[in-house]
């Protein structure tokens, strides 16, 4: 039995994985994308926002987490621009403001939105949850100038009536969900949508069921669902075939591993006798 198991050298598995990931990227298969409840809730909420509503996009987007968090944020922000709402970006990771300006915004259609009037980037705040709490309570105390023009925020038209978190009609947070639930939703009761890492999805479903989250887009998979609803072909839909194929491969190896384990276990028991 042992001699047939070529996969004992894990490099064969890596090679197979690379082939399985690459084929759908080079030649898309078009596997179906079923829409989950959490993505649908997010889409419906943004779809119902009246034109001119104020939305806070708070994020920890960085180069390292882009493949998982970038596509959900791109899809959500694309939808916001399409709805004609006013968007305020704030980052809680050092790379976030730069990546928002150089990678996120150039990818999407802004429908003629103007910087300062329809959207603004307030830069990066150090301090994690404490900074988030301070920002939610009094924006002008922690942010003095914007990231792009370095203009005092009191002189930026979009910031005219925005002083704290409760002045927003919706908050979107990209990253982990606990901090924004504690600092945006619980004290201010502002509807909250989160775009989260794929592996954190199951952990946050209880928050969705409890009504603390108004929507959730889970990683690349959630982004593919959102892009499908939006009719926008981005990284989510481009990667969804590869994702399905790799999951099939992992499931196949789980089955093969178990079959191998049980066969060798029976053999080992037989040898002992």
């Amino acid at each position, binding site marked *: 039995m042992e001699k047939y198991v070529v996969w004992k050298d894990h490099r064969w598995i890596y090679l197979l994985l690379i082939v399985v990931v690459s084929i759908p990227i080079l030649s898309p298969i078009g596997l179906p994308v079923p829409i989950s409840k959490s993505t649908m809730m997010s889409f419906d909420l943004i779809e119902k926002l009246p034109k001119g509503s104020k939305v806070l996009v708070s994020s920890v987007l960085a180069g390292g987490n882009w493949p998982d968090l970038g596509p959900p944020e791109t899809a959500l922000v694309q939808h916001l621009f399409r709805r004609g709402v006013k968007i305020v970006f704030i980052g809680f990771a050092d790379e976030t403001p730069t990546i928002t300006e150089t990678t996120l915004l150039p990818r999407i259609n802004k429908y003629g939105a103007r910087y300062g009037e329809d959207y603004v980037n307030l830069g990066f705040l150090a301090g994690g*949850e404490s900074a988030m709490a301070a920002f939610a309570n009094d924006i002008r105390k922690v942010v003095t100038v914007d990231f792009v023009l370095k203009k005092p925020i009191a002189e930026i038209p979009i910031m005219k009536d925005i002083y704290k978190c409760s002045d927003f009609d919706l908050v979107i947070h990209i990253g982990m969900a606990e901090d924004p639930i504690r600092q945006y939703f619980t004290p201010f009761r502002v509807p909250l949508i989160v775009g989260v890492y794929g592996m954190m999805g199951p952990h946050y479903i209880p928050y969705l069921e409890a009504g603390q989250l108004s929507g959730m887009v889970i990683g690349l998979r959630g982004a593919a669902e959102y892009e499908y609803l939006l009719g926008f072909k981005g990284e989510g839909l481009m990667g969804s075939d590869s994702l399905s194929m790799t999951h099939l491969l992992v499931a196949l190896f789980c089955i093969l591993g178990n079959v191998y384990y049980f066969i060798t276990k029976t053999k080992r028991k037989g040898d002992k006798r």
Partner: protein
Amino acid sequence: MIDFSILVAVFFTLCVYSFLYKESPFWRIAEQTFIGLALGYTTILAIKNIIDVAWIPISTGKNYWFIGSIILGLMLYTRFIRKYSWISRWPMAVLIGIGTGVAMRTVIEAQIVRQISATFISLMADTAQKTFNNICIVIMVVTSLFYFTFTGAPGKVSGKIRTIGRYTLMLTFGATFGYTVLTRMTLLIGRFTFLWSLGARYYLLVIGIIMLLALALKEKIEKLVQGKHSSLSF
């Protein structure tokens, strides 16, 4: 026209993935470059942050309270001097105190009260699927909590309840494992979507072939050197 940003990105991506085959000089180049760049970038950003948030308000006379923050920050560095390292505990205590205070302000409601009240649901809902879901939620929450009660004599009934709780936990771990695989694969897919994009695929082929040849040559030289050493030792 060579696009250097794409060239560098492809080169370093392949350097990192070369580790999947075995540790190589390419992997070490990528590792050390990344550490150096990340350290430099973070240091500059931290200095800029101190200037923007604290130094400008102090120097313009807008807020002198930040002098206290700067002193607390400097006190952290006393941990490098053994004699005065106890001083660094004070700013650490302030940091932990603020962090805990900010989180505790809402954690009771956000993560305890709301989560418990979300399980107080009607067992009979308007649809059969919802009714089934609600019954499952109640049974699974109660049995999972019961699994962690370690006091009391073990009995047949409590053993059965614990078993259901254990299966519930295993289902949760299974879902988490599935989503963890999803995240890891997402990172791989993100890189390969870039590598196979129109602007990068030619660099991928050229750099990939050069790297493979270099690795093969290195292995050959290493084998030759090893052969020489072993013949000398005899």
